[in-house]
């Protein structure tokens, strides 16, 4: 939305905004905690409030056509785009394309936690969606793997719902999340955070029953004899985000295979002329405010490209 609005302000006449979900705002809608907007609006907002500021502006703008539940299935290097929506397969050719596709969560599978595969292991963001969007409480005793922001936020969120959050397990010796989240989400709730530990096994046939935890040394090797077990019925995995750039890859853009982001000489650019990437799809930011700042830049850059500027 920030890119669309900025592109309009910079003189672009006609913007099509495709959103795969049934509402604008993406993952902000499930982030019901405060902490958004301190930089951009100089005001502390929740995720849905932050999104709503942009939704209102988008809806007022006649030059932005919003298409919800619209899923892009094909993008070419010459900016031909096909998308599905209920009732139609649409094809458009754009003069410029901005990808603001965000991130997906790294999964249990990507950090290879051995053990069985029972119910009760969720990416932290999925658990957040269950609790905040649907009112579904996934479990009663939880262990959180990784101290990313979503995991920390969910530790507090589950604690507020009466779930016993037994521990947060972090393999590094510092949190991956913001300091304020460690303080406000763990320390204020008395939730233990184990640095230099890893979950070495998940137990349980049908539903999670317990996890094995082991301490690791500086080279992340298990320290013999340091293992212990924690009983729980739920494991949330919060081990980072990966930009969702499968469309960009399909279009033939040069990609950095390690980070799944476009190879670019400057922020928001890709190797394809007229194709831009912004926000968490370009790189993983820690604050939504920085996503907005750089996405607005992407909107202006696309406008400049359309006006014939050399990039």
């Amino acid at each position: 939305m920030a890119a669309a609005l900025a592109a309009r302000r910079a003189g672009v006449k006609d913007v099509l905004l495709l959103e795969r979900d049934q509402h604008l705002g993406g993952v902000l809608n499930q982030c019901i905690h405060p902490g958004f907007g301190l930089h951009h609006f100089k005001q502390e907002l929740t995720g849905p409030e932050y999104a709503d500021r942009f939704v209102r502006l988008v809806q007022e703008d006649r030059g932005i056509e919003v298409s919800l539940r619209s899923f892009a299935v094909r993008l070419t290097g010459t900016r031909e785009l096909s998308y599905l929506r209920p009732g139609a397969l649409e094809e458009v050719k754009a003069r410029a394309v901005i990808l603001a596709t965000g991130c997906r969560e790294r999964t249990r599978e990507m950090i290879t936690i051995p053990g069985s595969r029972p119910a009760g292991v969720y990416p932290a963001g999925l658990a957040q969606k269950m609790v905040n969007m649907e009112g579904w409480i996934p479990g009663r005793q939880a262990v959180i793997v990784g101290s990313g922001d979503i995991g920390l936020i969910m530790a507090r969120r589950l604690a507020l719902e009466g779930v016993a959050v037994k521990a947060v397990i972090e393999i590094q010796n510092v949190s991956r999340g913001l300091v304020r989240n460690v303080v406000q989400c763990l320390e204020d709730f008395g939730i233990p955070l184990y640095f230099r530990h890893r979950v070495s096994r998940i137990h349980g046939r049908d539903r999670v029953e317990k996890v094995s935890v082991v301490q690791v040394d500086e080279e992340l090797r298990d320290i013999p004899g340091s293992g212990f077990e924690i009983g729980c019925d739920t494991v949330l995995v919060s081990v980072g985000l990966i930009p969702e750039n499968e469309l960009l890859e399909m279009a033939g853009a040069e990609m950095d295979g390690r980070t799944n982001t476009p190879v670019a000489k400057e922020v928001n650019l890709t190797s394809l002329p007229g194709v831009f990437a912004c926000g968490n799809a370009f790189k993983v930011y820690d604050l939504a405010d920085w996503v907005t700042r750089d996405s607005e830049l992407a909107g202006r850059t696309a406008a400049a490209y359309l006006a014939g500027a050399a990039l």
Partner: protein
Amino acid sequence: MFSDVIIIGAGVSGAAIARELSRYKLKVLLLEKEAEPAFGVSKSNSGIIHAGTQNPPSSLKGWLCVEGNRLLREELAADLGLHFVQCGQLVVIFDLADLAELEKIKKEGEELGVQGLELVDRAWLDRHEPNLGPEVKAALYAPTAGIISPYRFVYALVENAVRNGVQLKTSRKVAAIRRTEKGEFEVVAGGEVCRARFLVNAAGLFADEISAMAGAPSFTITPRKGEEYLLDRKREHLANHLIFPLPSKTSKGILIIKTSDGNPMIGPTAHDTCDKSDLSTTDEGLAEVLAGARRMMPTISPGDIIAYFAGLRPAAGKDFIIRHEDSVPGLVNVAGIQSPGLTAAPAIAVMVADILKGRGLRLEPKEQFHRLRPRPVHLFQVPLAETRQLIEKNPAYGDIVCRCELVSAQEVRDAVKRGASTLDGVKFRTRAQSGRCHGGFCTTRIMKIMQEELGFPVTAITKRGPGSELIKDERK
């Protein structure tokens, strides 16, 4: 209730037998202990339709595999609307001194009737399989091998069997088997007593226990665990064929497996275990699989892995056990069906029907046997032009639920209508949740569709049956 035949186990063997018997005027009951068919051994099958090489010529496995491959290619794939891809297989060697071994496999295969076997050199491999590593020197090419989705194969067989009158009952764990004075079987399963003249035991890992319960403790199942690692769909074109190393004594080795869904797979390991519920993966297994696969294709990296799982092969010695137990008249055991069981299943089914006939079961063909089963729609299998037509007919095909694997709301709904009652059941039928995000984005949407279709509360939705509930409480 009384049946002519009770089949215990709705894995690929039981399902194929049920479908075969459904041609005849018989009352057939198919019992499954899990919440859905294919949830036992079959769900972790690699999906390889073997050509029929690498089996001893004198074994049951040998001819059943070749015949099963033929039946599948020539009849079942089309009749049941299966997505069978005949990609062919390569058995590669790292040392030209092993050429004699390949020659032996070729000769044994030809004796069994495997068609088109050919020894190929490095130049051929460079043209047809460019990602092979430098260590590979030559290979045996078997063009009749292919790939299929193992669970969708089972679902197709079961659906078609049910269409033809077979009764399926799931969540029916057999607790006891008795004989009446008239010599009939009484099977107590899920609190219900079912009677039949004939009993077919296709209980996979538990076939030894079922056989013993029926009065024939004549063999033991030793589970042999295999860990498999699934790669991202982006690596779909990594390999053009199924790639095997020379087989060892206990297994066919670590393979590079094309799958009919696109994601290549590497594995499986082969380690005996004594625990029939041990489906855990291990750090050692991962290391073994990676080393084996990378020797054949060095560009495979740990970062390509998006999922992993383990399966248990129900081994009962080296060969299949498919026989009437003379000590328990009417009992037919179908046990030890490890690799190449998926391939052999259609042929096993015909063999079992024959055994039953030999024991006095009348096989009178039905006036109308519904041979065909309509192919379910999978957007990921069709080109965009066809997707457009589908959406025009039914808008819900344009409502995408699973972004990684391109699965629409309509496909999820169809899966539930066709019998999926668990999240895994939806996953196996549609692929939704099986991609790189692992259901992070689509799980809640799928659960809501299941709630709508099945009409039960979210706290009753399970991953794979009772005990695996996903949500503990619903906030009021």
